[in-house]
C-alpha cells in the first residue's frame, strides 16, 4: 500500500520515463509521453529503433531460399535466427541449404538451428519433384559451408529462448511446416506441468494447518504486543505526552512483525488493539485517551478517502478488460457466498445468543456487505505475471462500485421498510448491572452447590487470574474495580458531559469549585471560614446580581415574571456549591447527581408542603427537559427523596445563614401558591422567611449535634446587612 501511495505521489509531481510502468496512473501518462516523443522524433530516429525482428522457420527449398534472401535484403529487418525443419527435404539438407544461401548473401553470422526431422502426424509429402533431391535444384556446390556452422542448440529451445529474450517484438515467419512451432508450444506446456509441484496428502494437511497457524498466530502476536504496550504504559506517568505515540507504535509494530512472518497481520493489529484497550485505558491519562481516539479516527478517514480517491482514478484511467460473463458471475457469487456465510454462521452462534438473529437480521447482515478498500488493494497489488490481472482488477472495481453505491444507498430505506429491530444503545443502567451481577453470583453459588460447572466457572477463573496476575503486572495502580463501579462512574461522567453540552453558559461561568475545594483543605479553621464565607458571598452576589438584571421587577412588587430560566441558573449554582462542599464528593464527578435537586434544595421535603404536581409546573419539567436527564425511562418528575444522606444536610445548614438558596424557591412556590405562602409566615425565630424555615425544617430537625466542621453559623444580622443578599420583601397581600 505504501508503494502505491508513493507512486501516486511521484506521478503527480513528475513523469519521468524511467520510472516503472506498473502504476496505472503512470501508465496513462507514459502512453501520452511515448506518443509525443515518437511523433517529435520520428524522422530523426535511426532505423534500428524501428526495425522488425524476425525469426525464420524454413524447410529450405527454392521458395524458402528466396524468402531468406528477401528478408536479408530488406532495410529495416533484423533476422534473429533461422530454424530448420523437415519439409521439402530432410532437415540436414535444409540446414545445408540455409547455410549456402547465407554464405552467398554473406550473412553467415545469423545463427542456424536444426529442428524437427519428422512430421508429428506422420504425413509425408515428397518434394523431390519440385525442389530436387538436395532441395535446391541439385546444383553442384563445391564450396558449401561446413555443417559445423549449425548451432548446437536445438531449434525448439532456440525459438523459445529468442522469443523470451525479446518479448513482444519477435515475428515468426514460417515458410515451412509448423512442426517446430508445435513442438515449442508443447514443450512450454509440458515444462510447466512438469514443474508444477505434486500435491500430496501432507500438503493438504499442511494447507489446513497453515490456516490455523496464520489466524491464531496473528492473534497470538496481537495479544503479545498488547501486553507489552500495556506494560510500557504502566511507567509513562511522567511522560504523558508520548503515550499516544507508544500506542500507535505498538499497534503498527504488531502489524509489521506479523507481515514479516507471513501471518495474518490484520488479525494481529486488531487483537493488539483489543488487548490494549482494556489495560491501557486505565493506565494513560484522559487526554491521551482522547488523543488516541481522535487520531485513529482521523487516520482511518484519511486512509479510506485516499483509497477511494485512488479507486476512482484507476476506474477512469486504466485500460479495462471487460468480460461480461466473468464480471457478472463474480457479482453474483459475491452475493451468494456472503449470504451463505451469514446463514451458516448465524445458525452456529444463534443458540449461544441472548437475542438470536431472526431472518430480517440475517438479511440485513447479508445485504449490508459492502466491498471496499481492502479488496481493491488486494486486487491491485497482484503480481504482474498473472496474465489476467487487468480482468481481475476490472471485476473488483465493478463489484466495489456496485456494492458501495447501489447497496450502500439502498440499504437504509430497505432496512426501515422491513422494520429490522434496531439496537438500543441506551441499555446501560446501574440497575441492570447490579442485578445481573447478583444473578451471576447466584448461579455460581448454585453451581457450586450442585457440584457442576459451566462456562461461568471458566469466566470466573479467568477473571480471578486477570485480577490477581495480569492487572498487577500491567496496570499502574491496580485496584480491583468492580464493573458496577466502573459503569457507575462512566454513567456519571456521561451525564456530566451532557450537562456541559447543553447548559454550557451557566456552568462554565461558575466560579471554580476547585478553589472552594482548595479552601477546604486549609487546616486553619478561622481564616478558612472567613475566606470561604467571603467566597460564598461573592459568588452569591454575582449570581444575585445577574438575577437582578433580569428580574428587576422583583423589588418593584409587581407580579413575578415567570422567569424560570433565571431561577434555574441560581438553583444550579447553589446546587453546585452545595455539592462542592460535601466532603469526599470530588471522587465522583457529581455534576449531574444534583440534577434531581434542580428545583429543590437538597434534603427537602417539599412534597409534604406542596403537592408534587405544583412543583412540576414550576421548573422541574423545564429543567429536566432542558438537560435531558438520561434516565428517561421514567417520566421526569420531581423526586424529593424521603431520606437523603446526612451529609447533604450539612451544607444546607450552613447556607441557612445566607438564606439565598431557599429564597428563590420561595419565589417559586409563591408564584404558584401565593395564599399558602402567607400562611406560612409565622413561626419565624430568626427573622427570616418562614418558607425558608419550613423548607429547611427537615434540615434543622436533622440530628447534627456537632457543628459543621467548616463553618460556624453566622448571626442573622450579617445577612440582612448585605443589601444584595437580603431576601426581597414581597408581600403577597399587597
Amino acid at each position, binding site marked *: 500500500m505504501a508503494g502505491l501511495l508513493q507512486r501516486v505521489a511521484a506521478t503527480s509531481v513528475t513523469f519521468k520515463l524511467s520510472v516503472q510502468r506498473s502504476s496505472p496512473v503512470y501508465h496513462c501518462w507514459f502512453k501520452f509521453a511515448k506518443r509525443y516523443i515518437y511523433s517529435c522524433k520520428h524522422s530523426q530516429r535511426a532505423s534500428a529503433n524501428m526495425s522488425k525482428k524476425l525469426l525464420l522457420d524454413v524447410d529450405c527449398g527454392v521458395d524458402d531460399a528466396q524468402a531468406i534472401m528477401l528478408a536479408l535484403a530488406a532495410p529495416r529487418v533484423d533476422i534473429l535466427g533461422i530454424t530448420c525443419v523437415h519439409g521439402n527435404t530432410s532437415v540436414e539438407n535444409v540446414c545445408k541449404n540455409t547455410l549456402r544461401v547465407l554464405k552467398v548473401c554473406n550473412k553467415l553470422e545469423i545463427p542456424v538451428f536444426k529442428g524437427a526431422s519428422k512430421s508429428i502426424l506422420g504425413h509425408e509429402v515428397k518434394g523431390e519433384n519440385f525442389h530436387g533431391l538436395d532441395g535446391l535444384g541439385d546444383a553442384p556446390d563445391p564450396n558449401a559451408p561446413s555443417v559445423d556452422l549449425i548451432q548446437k542448440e536445438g531449434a525448439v529451445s532456440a525459438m523459445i529462448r529468442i522469443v523470451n529474450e525479446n518479448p513482444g517484438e519477435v515475428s515468426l515467419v514460417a515458410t515451412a511446416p509448423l512442426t517446430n512451432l508445435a513442438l515449442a508450444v508443447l514443450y512450454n506446456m509440458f515444462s510447466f506441468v512438469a514443474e508444477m509441484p505434486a500435491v500430496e496428502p501432507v500438503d493438504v494437511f499442511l494447507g489446513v494447518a497453515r490456516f490455523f497457524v496464520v489466524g491464531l498466530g496473528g492473534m497470538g502476536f496481537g495479544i503479545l504486543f498488547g501486553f507489552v504496550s500495556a506494560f510500557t504504559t504502566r511507567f509513562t506517568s511522567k511522560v504523558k505526552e508520548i503515550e499516544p505515540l507508544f500506542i500507535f507504535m505498538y499497534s503498527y509494530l504488531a502489524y509489521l512483525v506479523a507481515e514479516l512472518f507471513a501471518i495474518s497481520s490484520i488479525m494481529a493489529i486488531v487483537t493488539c488493539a483489543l488487548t490494549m484497550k482494556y489495560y491501557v485505558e486505565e493506565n494513560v491519562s484522559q487526554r491521551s485517551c482522547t488523543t488516541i481516539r481522535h487520531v485513529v479516527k482521523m487516520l482511518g478517514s484519511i486512509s479510506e478517502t485516499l483509497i477511494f480517491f485512488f479507486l476512482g482514478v484507476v476506474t477512469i484511467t486504466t485500460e479495462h478488460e471487460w468480460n461480461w460473463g466473468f464480471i457478472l458471475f463474480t457479482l453474483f457469487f459475491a452475493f451468494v457466498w456472503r449470504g451463505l456465510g451469514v446463514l451458516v454462521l448465524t445458525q452456529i452462534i444463534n443458540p449461544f445468543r441472548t437475542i438470536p438473529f431472526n431472518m430480517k437480521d440475517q438479511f440485513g447482515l447479508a445485504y449490508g456487505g459492502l466491498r471496499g478498500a481492502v479488496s481493491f488493494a488486494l486486487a491491485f497489488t497482484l503480481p504482474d505475471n498473472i496474465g489476467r490481472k487487468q480482468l481481475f482488477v476490472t471485476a473488483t472495481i465493478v463489484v466495489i462500485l456496485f456494492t458501495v453505491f447501489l447497496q450502500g444507498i439502498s440499504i437504509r430505506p430497505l432496512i426501515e421498510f422491513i422494520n429490522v429491530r434496531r439496537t438500543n444503545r441506551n441499555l446501560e443502567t446501574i440497575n441492570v448491572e447490579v442485578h445481573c451481577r447478583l*444473578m451471576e453470583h447466584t*448461579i455460581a453459588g*448454585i453451581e457450586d452447590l*450442585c457440584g457442576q460447572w459451566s462456562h461461568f466457572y471458566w469466566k470466573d477463573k479467568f477473571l480471578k487470574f486477570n485480577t490477581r496476575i495480569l492487572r498487577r503486572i500491567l496496570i499502574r495502580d491496580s485496584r480491583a474495580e468492580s464493573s458496577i463501579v466502573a459503569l457507575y462512574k462512566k454513567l456519571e461522567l456521561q451525564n456530566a458531559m451532557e450537562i456541559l453540552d447543553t447548559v454550557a453558559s451557566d456552568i462554565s461561568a461558575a466560579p471554580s469549585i476547585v478553589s472552594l475545594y482548595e479552601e477546604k483543605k486549609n487546616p486553619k479553621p478561622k481564616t478558612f471560614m472567613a475566606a470561604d464565607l467571603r467566597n460564598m458571598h461573592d459568588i452569591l452576589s454575582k449570581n444575585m446580581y445577574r438575577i437582578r438584571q433580569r428580574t428587576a421587577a422583583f423589588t418593584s412588587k409587581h407580579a413575578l415574571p415567570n422567569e424560570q430560566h433565571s431561577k434555574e441558573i441560581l438553583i444550579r449554582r447553589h446546587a453546585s456549591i452545595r455539592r462542592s462542599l460535601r466532603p469526599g464528593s470530588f471522587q465522583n464527578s457529581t455534576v449531574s447527581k444534583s440534577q434531581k435537586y434542580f428545583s429543590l434544595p437538597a434534603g427537602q421535603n417539599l412534597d409534604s408542603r406542596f403537592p408534587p404536581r405544583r412543583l412540576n409546573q414550576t421548573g422541574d419539567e423545564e429543567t429536566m427537559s432542558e438537560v435531558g436527564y438520561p434516565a428517561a425511562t421514567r417520566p421526569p418528575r420531581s*423526586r424529593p427523596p424521603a431520606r437523603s444522606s446526612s451529609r447533604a444536610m450539612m451544607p444546607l445548614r450552613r447556607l441557612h445563614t445566607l438564606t439565598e438558596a431557599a429564597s428563590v424557591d420561595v419565589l417559586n412556590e409563591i408564584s404558584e401558591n401565593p395564599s399558602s405562602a402567607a400562611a406560612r409566615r409565622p413561626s419565624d425565630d430568626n427573622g427570616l422567611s418562614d418558607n425558608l424555615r419550613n423548607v429547611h425544617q427537615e434540615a434543622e430537625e436533622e440530628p447534627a449535634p456537632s457543628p459543621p466542621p467548616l463553618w460556624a453559623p453566622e448571626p442573622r444580622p450579617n445577612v440582612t446587612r448585605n443589601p444584595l443578599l437580603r431576601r426581597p420583601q414581597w408581600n403577597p397581600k399587597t
Partner: protein
Amino acid sequence: MGSSKSTLQHIPNAQELIQETGFSPAHIQRLYERFDLLDRDQMGRLRVPDFEAIQELAENPIGDRIIGAFFASGKDTVDFPSFVRVLAHFQPTDANRSRDSAPEPYTSPNRKLRFAFQLYDQDRDGKISRAELLQVLQEMLGLQVSDEQLQSIAERAIQEADLDQDDAISFEEFKQSLEKVDIDQKMRIGFLS
C-alpha cells in the same frame, strides 16, 4: 436411563416432584445423590452448616443469601422436595413448556425474577428498600469502594428504577428495570437442561 423407575423408589414423592418441577427422572436421581452427599448426618434434611461446608459457596459474596433462599421462612432445615423446588427455578424456560401445569411453572421468567428479588428482600416486605440494596452492594463490592460511592450507586439505582417515588423498588419495578435482559439466559444452569 432405562431403569429409572426402579431407582426412584427410595426417593420419596419422586413422581410428584417430577410432575411439579419438570425435572427428568435422571435429574432427580442426580440431585438426590447430591443431597445425600451434602447431608452429612444422614437425617434426610439439610441444615445451614451443611450448606456452608461447601467452600466456594461460603466464599461467594452473597452466599449466605443463597443459602437463606433454600430455607422457607421459619424453618431451619431443608428437605429434599424443597431443595428440588428451589433448584427447579434454574432450568431453562422452554424445557417445561409441554408439562405446563395450571399454576405458574417454576421456570417461568416471573418465578426466576421473584427468586432473584427475594435474594434482595430479606425481610419479605415485597420491596427492596435502600438499606437492603446497600447491603447487597456492600456484599458484592465490599472492600473496593468507599461508603460514599456505595451510597451514590444505591441512590442512582433507586432513582433509575423507582417509578412510584416510594424510595424502594417493588417487584414490578424490579421486573421493569430488567425487561431488556434475557432472564432465562442469566438464571439458568446448563446441566439441568
